[in-house]
């Protein structure tokens, strides 16, 4: 467990070394969310209707973009070899990286979402379900994304291959995440949808670190 915190601490330090980094994830999120009103036009009725979808799609893309470097930085400079020959179990290394990734992307996104909801003219009541859905859903994104990042590690054109591998697996989270927000803000009970999201999280937490560790072993060959 101690090892786990050492690993998480290192990744956090690397990503907060320049404070700019966390700002960047947030900035990307904000800019992309702001692109849509430009692309769609400012009509309030439509924006309001598609707001939850845009926030979720952007969260997926932000997560995807930042996952690109999850393992490849360590692979490039040889640190991955050293981590894999260290006393830390590969699964633990992967799990620590996933946690650090969520802390630097998923968590800020979750905290920022209500503010961005306002710019998309979403109803005030949607803030709470939005944050809850993101809080349950974004860790699953990091988990699944880690598998994709590990699988595509040695591959050419990772930047393009990653989305192809990962996005199909993200789609269920997107559907349920948006559904949970929309259902709640329409005044219905979305408990079932949140439960499904939680179920995804549990399954992903149980499977993904192992799958990613196995994929890493292959990549280092």
């Amino acid at each position, binding site marked *: 467990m101690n090892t786990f915190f050492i690993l998480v601490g290192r990744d956090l330090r690397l990503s907060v070394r320049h404070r700019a980094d966390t700002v960047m994830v947030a900035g990307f999120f904000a800019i992309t969310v702001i692109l849509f009103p430009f692309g769609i036009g400012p009509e309030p009725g439509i924006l309001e209707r598609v707001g939850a979808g845009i926030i979720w799609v952007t969260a997926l893309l932000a997560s995807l973009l930042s996952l690109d470097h999850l393992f490849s930085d360590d692979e490039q400079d040889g640190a991955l070899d050293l981590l894999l020959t260290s006393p830390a179990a590969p699964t633990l290394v992967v799990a620590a990286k996933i946690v650090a990734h969520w802390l630097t992307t998923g968590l800020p996104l979750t905290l920022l979402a209500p503010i961005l909801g306002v710019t998309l003219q979403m109803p005030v009541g949607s803030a709470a379900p939005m944050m809850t859905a993101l809080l349950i859903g974004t860790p699953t994104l990091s988990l699944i994304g880690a598998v994709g990042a590990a699988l*595509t590690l040695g591959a050419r054109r990772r930047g393009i291959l990653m989305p192809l591998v990962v996005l199909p697996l993200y*789609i269920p989270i997107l559907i349920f995440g948006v559904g949970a927000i929309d259902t709640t803000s329409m005044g219905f009970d979305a408990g079932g949808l949140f439960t499904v999201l939680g179920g995804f999280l549990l399954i992903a937490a149980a499977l993904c670190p192992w*799958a990613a560790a196995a994929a890493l072993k292959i990549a280092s*060959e």
Partner: protein
Amino acid sequence: MHALANPTRFLKLAATIQPWAAGLCILCFLFGLPIALLFSPPDYQQGDTVRIMYIHVPAAWMGLFCYGVMAAGSASYLIWRHPVANMIAKSSAPIGAMFTALCLLTGMLWGQPMWGTPWVWDARLTSMLVLFFLYLGYIALGGAFDSPEQGDKAAAILALVGSVNLPIIKFSVDWWNSLHQPSIFSMAGISVDAAMLPPLFLMVGAFQLYYVVVVLMSVRAQVLTAKIRAAKLMRTT
């Protein structure tokens, strides 16, 4: 199964099975297609459009089946390192992708008269589309490495991870109320006219045999290219 893991023995076995499967496949098409498209009864509700079913349903089943084979082959490749299992998985991918695309296309053709729109974002339809992308991802990932072995293993893991999608497709009609038809075969019995079953089964058989023939051909080709490549590498270095 372990006996089949030896490529040389597999080659022999494949050579004997293949002509039989090919012949049977042609027979099934010869009988199945005319019966399905011309001589079977029209549906009391859907009229002649129901004939799309004889392509759509076998294609859908094959799309799922190929993924199942792919996942099983990938698992046995990862666990027991059976090279032939991997080759079967690899050859199943493009065929499965093709059947899935066929299912999507015929579904869209069918949807136009039945639902008034070719496409709705409904759980079964979208999960089938996701399946298609998983196939594409598997193919792309497998070809994206310099070392073929690495690509094979990475793609195998993806196939296993993606197999969580299979039950979602299968049970999506039950879990979410959907525009799409529920299962023909369920606990409650068979839900179509008995006269529709023979052509349906002939078409299913034809598609299945077609799959077997193509996979055997492709695996044989892979075995031979691998041998040639190994021999070449030996000579150069």
